[in-house]
């Protein structure tokens, strides 16, 4: 993913009128789209200007689509699908299948397990895998690994490098300089992007915070592309409180700065609602947003919830526009909605063609 820097959405807006839906060859004409997927196996490109689904492509083979990562030039969406056994690249202009990597081979059954990302230079894809050897009369769980593929490897891609990785990683995210691939799991591991060596490790499960138990971190939504900060909510019991005390359970945010590698874990409320995914504001370093049955605005400086509204159904995935003014939500059912980041008022909504559930599909923001 390119560091877009000062090239703001405002500039993009100015040129939109001249860009046809197919006019992606116009370098100046970059504007913001959402990329998401739904069942059975559809990939969608949503135009955030017209609030319409600009394109829908059928991903070949079985569904259901899950994690989505888009190449830095916004041309190709890589999607985990086929019961997590395949990683498929679809050209977002033509719908052509340009990449496919099946995780299983011989007597090894393996999954692309949630965590997957394209590299910053767009040349490689990193995928976390859970191989199992199927013997006659016996299964053998093998060690987990990160497989690295070349994006130009075509439809029968094989890994060019494979390195061991601790189990239970659920998100992979590349550092801004491209040298590190971070894996969020029991710790936040920093893998050397070339050698796979673990160069840094920030414990989460064993974070050692006095009077705190083990945090429960549900992180399956890679939403770092706009702010370059990866965040996920955690829920944690306090060990110094009576179980029925109002502050016996705390909700907080774990944040990883992809520029600096810095990790913070900070509570912001006594647990009162469930939050599935969060996203960091690109314009206000002290503001983050989370969603599930409610949409929550988090003040990270004051450590409080500064606003919260009820949604009309649950949403799994949240993301934010490059100008920081609009929140996008998807996941579950076929609704993708946009809300005002300042007021939390609804702005617009689209229904995905086919009506299928988005499930765990990522909702990514791209400029192309």
């Amino acid at each position, binding site marked *: 993913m390119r560091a877009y820097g000062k090239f703001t959405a405002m500039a993009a807006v100015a040129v939109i009128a001249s860009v046809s839906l197919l006019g992606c060859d116009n370098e100046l004409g970059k504007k913001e789209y959402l990329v998401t997927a739904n069942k059975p196996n559809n990939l969608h490109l949503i135009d955030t200007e017209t609030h319409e689904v600009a394109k829908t492509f059928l991903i070949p083979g079985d569904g259901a689509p899950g994690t989505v990562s888009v190449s830095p030039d916004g041309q190709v969406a890589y999607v985990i699908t086929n*019961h997590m056994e395949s990683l498929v690249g679809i050209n977002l202009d033509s719908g052509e299948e340009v990449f496919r990597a099946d995780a299983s081979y011989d007597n090894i059954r393996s999954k692309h397990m949630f965590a997957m990302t394209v590299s910053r230079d767009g040349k490689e894809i990193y995928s976390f895998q859970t191989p*199992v050897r199927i013997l006659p009369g*016996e299964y053998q769980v093998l060690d987990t690994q990160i497989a690295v593929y070349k994006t130009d490897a075509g439809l029968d891609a094989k890994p060019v490098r494979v390195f061991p990785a601790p*189990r239970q990683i659920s998100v992979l995210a590349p550092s801004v300089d491209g040298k590190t691939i971070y894996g969020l799991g029991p710790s936040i591991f920093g893998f050397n992007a070339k050698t796979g060596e673990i160069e840094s490790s920030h414990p989460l499960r064993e974070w050692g915070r006095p009077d705190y138990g*083990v945090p*429960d971190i549900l992180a399956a939504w890679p939403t770092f592309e706009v702010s370059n900060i990866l965040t996920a909510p955690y829920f944690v019991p306090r060990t110094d409180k009576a179980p029925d005390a109002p502050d016996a359970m705390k909700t907080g945010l774990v944040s990883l700065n992809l520029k600096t590698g810095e990790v913070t874990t900070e509570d912001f409320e006594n647990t009162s609602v469930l939050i599935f995914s969060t996203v960091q504001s690109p314009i206000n370093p002290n503001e983050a947003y989370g969603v599930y049955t409610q949409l929550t605005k988090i003040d990270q400086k004051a450590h409080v919830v500064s606003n919260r509204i*009820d*949604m009309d159904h649950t949403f799994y995935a949240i993301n934010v526009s490059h100008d920081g003014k609009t929140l996008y939500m998807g996941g579950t059912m076929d609704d993708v909605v946009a809300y005002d980041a300042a007021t939390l008022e609804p702005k617009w909504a689209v229904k995905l063609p086919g009506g299928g559930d988005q499930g765990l599909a990522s909702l990514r923001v791209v400029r192309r």
Partner: protein
Amino acid sequence: MKLGAGACWKIAVLGLTAGWLTTPEAGTAQELDPRNILEERCSSCHTPRAGGGLERISDNRKTPEGWEMTIVRMGIWHGVEVPEDELAVLVRHLSNTQGLAPAETAGQRFILERQPNVVENIPNAELNVMCARCHSFARVALQRQDEDEWRKQSHAHLGQYPTTEYQSLGRDRDWWGIARDKMPKLLGEMFPLKTDTWDDWRKSAKADISGSWRVHGERPGVGRYVGSAEITATDWDEYEVTYALRYANGSEVTGQGAAIVYTGFEWRGSATLGDEEVREVFALSEDGNSLSGRWFLANADEVGAHFNAVRVREGASTIIAVEPQMLRAGESTNITIHGFGLKGNVSLGDGVTISEFVTADANSITVVATAATDIEGGNRSVSIGSTIATDLFSVYSQIDRLVVEPPFAIARVGGGTTPAVVAQFTAVAYLNGPDGEAGTNDDVRLGSVPAEWSIENFSEEAEQMEDAKYVGTIDQNGTFMPAGAGPNPERKYKTNNAGRVTVKANAANGESQIAGDAEMVVTVQRWNSPPIL
């Protein structure tokens, strides 16, 4: 996870049932040699061992339901085709040669009996969170295998369900590390393959169940029943049975059925009782003289009844039930004592006078009895001649406590091809006993009483969501019928008809009333219902 296991289990359950029923007549089943089937259907993957036996298969002991599940799973996971008649033969053979002894199933029978809403007592907190969050602990506790085999079971779990270590209560711990090392060691010690209990049981002579039996039980929501069962053998492990039952409300039900007895004691039957199709899961006691368990509707296993049968033995005498089972101070009523070989003087214990004999034969004696107005509440020994029963009858002046059973229940909304799962409640009257304290060992369970039933919102959250209005309705037999499945446009968040309510019972207590309650969660449909939940 590829499998929509739901459909598969329905086939599985019906499959075995059909097996039970067809095997007696089929004849062909007899010609199927289980060793040939194992060779033909299993040995391609489970390699024969030099000393006999097959890899993995010989390292396990299971209940009939456990074997059925494993073999059906071989079909779903590994594409192994086992026709129904061969499945029946294999389940029978493996349960007989690699089964569990009666004592090894103690404490876990509720799961085989498909008793709803049982809260399990799990001996170890880590085991609970590791191995009893997706299915019952009973499923685990009804298997016998050594550490290494338990480890392979863990490999199969994570191998098949790789998201296990990402789920809630999986992702907050080193799930695989614990499942691979700690759990197999613990389970191998708790539930090892080789036990004296099993060796002894396997060697022991098994009882012939044929004969005359006296039967009693209670069907929650309907009431207590007594009656008889005439059992005849059709093969060394197959029986036919005729029932004649009479409920306390006066209704009479007759029926007949057939059963296979696995492992010398596991009675699995299918019967027609009145106009209902039922399944029976009973266990024969080690002495062969009592048969007990639960029967339930073939198409709704949460609806059923407790069942106890005692073999009628020449020259012996037993009291099995007293109806009604409780008598209030100052009240006078007909009381019937059920059993067999009944003969002699009748006593209903201190403070209860018998004024008249209404009827008397060897199986039941009816008397008119009166409890003294100042009678002290508690159990009364009932005796006829020298035959005594100590805990079948009690007297009281006031009920101390009304307990709703079960204290916590789950019901499921219904719709489409999946019928609702109802919840059945019973109001049970208790005395606090001599110490006057509720919940102590000297409490006296008087028995179930009629009650007025209602539901209320369980909590403030339920109040806001108006759960009690949407989840369904309860009738005056304590039967809760859940509402329909799917999103409800009338509800906040368009949520479905799930919710949490308090179930309230109100019963007469002399001139006043006594109340009790239970908690119920109404939730979504369950798509699969394997033989061992």
